[in-house]
C-alpha cells in the first residue's frame, strides 16, 4: 500500500461520510494536486512531492489533516 493510495482512500471516506458531491470534490483536489485520484492504485509508487501536494489539496478542499 502506498501513501498516495492511503490518501485517496481517506479522501473518498471523508466524501462519503460528509455526503459531498464526489465528482466535484475529487475534481478540485485533482486539479490542485495535479493528480487524478482514479488513477492512484495500491501499487502506485510514492513520490514525496506528489504526496505533499495531494495532502495539501486535501487539507485545502476538505480541511483534513492526512
Amino acid at each position, binding site marked *: 500500500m502506498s501513501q498516495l493510495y492511503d490518501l485517496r482512500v481517506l479522501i473518498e471516506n471523508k466524501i462519503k461520510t460528509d455526503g459531498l458531491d*464526489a*465528482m*466535484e*470534490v*475529487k*475534481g*478540485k*483536489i*485533482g*486539479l490542485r494536486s495535479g493528480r*487524478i*485520484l*482514479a*488513477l492512484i*492504485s495500491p501499487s502506485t509508487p510514492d513520490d514525496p512531492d506528489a504526496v505533499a501536494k495531494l495532502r495539501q489539496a486535501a487539507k485545502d478542499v476538505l480541511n483534513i489533516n492526512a
Partner: protein
Amino acid sequence: MKWNLIRTKVLVALAACLVLGVGGILALMYYSFVRNSQALAAESVTGAQKLFTILEAREISKMTAVSETLIMNPEVRDAFAAKDRSRLLELTAPLYPRLKSQGITNWMFHTPEPDMAVFLRLHNPAKFGDHLNRFMDKEVARTHAMVTGNELAKAGFAVRILRPVYDARGGVTGYVELGEEIGQFIHTMKNQTGDDYGLLLSKKFVDRQFWADSSAVWKRRDNWDDNPNFVVADKTTPTDNIIQFQGEVAAVPDQGKVLQWFHEGDSAFVRGIFPIRDAAGNTVGAMFVVRDISSLYMAMRHTRNVLVLVTVVALALGIFLVLTLLNRLIFRRLEHIIVVATRVVGGDYESEIRVESDDEVGQFEQLFEQFRRVFVDLLAHVPEFQEK
C-alpha cells in the same frame, strides 16, 4: 469582494465612471454658476451705476428747472440785486420746505466775484458771509454759465447746480445754488431695485472734525475709525456689515468692480463697487452695491440636484445593464467551463460543455469541449482504467 476577478474590476471601473460623471457635472454646474454669478454681479454694478447716473441727471434737470423759474422771478431777482437779504429770505423761505420735501436740501445765494461769499442759506439763514472756495464756485465765476456736478462740502456730499443770476440790465448780481444729498439717492435706488447700497467717502476729502461734528448733529455714530481709507456716509441697511471693502476709493475703476459673491444662510449675494467723481473729476467717493442672487442660486442648485440625480440613476442603470450583460455573456459561461473541467478531473466523464454561441467565449467553449473529449479518450486508454 475578490479584487482579482474581472467582475470586480469592471464594477470598480464603472463605479469610478459614476463618481467621475457626477463630479464632472458638479464641476460644470459650479463653473456655470460662478460664470452666471460674475455676469450678474457685473450687471448689478453696471446697472447701479447707470441708475445712479440717471437719478443724478434727473435731479440736475429738476434743479435746473427750479432755478430757472427762480431767477425769472423779478421780485427775487431785484431783492438779490439790491442785496436785500431780509426781502430775499421773505420771498424764498416759504418755498424752501416744499423744495426740501422734493429732495432739494441745499439752497444758497452767493455774492459775485471777487468776494463770492455766501449771501443767504435757505437751509441755515443765520449763517452767511463765509467763503466756500469750492471748484464749482471758481468754475461758475470763470465761465458765467451754469455748472453742475457732485461736490463734497461741509453740508455733505451733494449733486449741485450753480448758475449766475442777472439783473435787469444783464449784469451778474451773484449766483444761486441748489443741491441734493447723494445719500438719499441710495434709498431711491433700493426702492427701485431691491438691492442694498452704501455710500463711501474718501477720507482724503473729508475733514475729521467736520465728520465728528456732523455725526453729533445727525445723532449718528461717529464711524470715522471703522475703515482706514473711507467713511460710510449712508447705507440702506441698519448695520455696516454689507460694506466689505479694504481698498482705496480712488483705485476703483471707472466702470466699477465686482468684489465677491458670498453666502449668508440660504441666501447668496454679490458685492460690487463703482466710483463717484466730483465736479472737478476727483474720485471722492464710491457706491457699494449688494445684490441678492438667491433666486438664481436656488434655481441653479435645483438644476444641479436634478442633473446629479438623473446622472446617478442613468449611470446606475448603465452599470446594472453592463454587469448583467457581462454575467450572461462571459462570467456564467466561464463558471460552467470551470465546473465541467473540475467534474471531468473528478471522474464525471459524461459532463459536457454546452456551446451556446459562436462568440469569443463560444469559441473557447468549443475548444474546451474538444479538449475534454480528447482527455476522456486518453484516459480510456490508460491501463489503470482498463483494469477497472
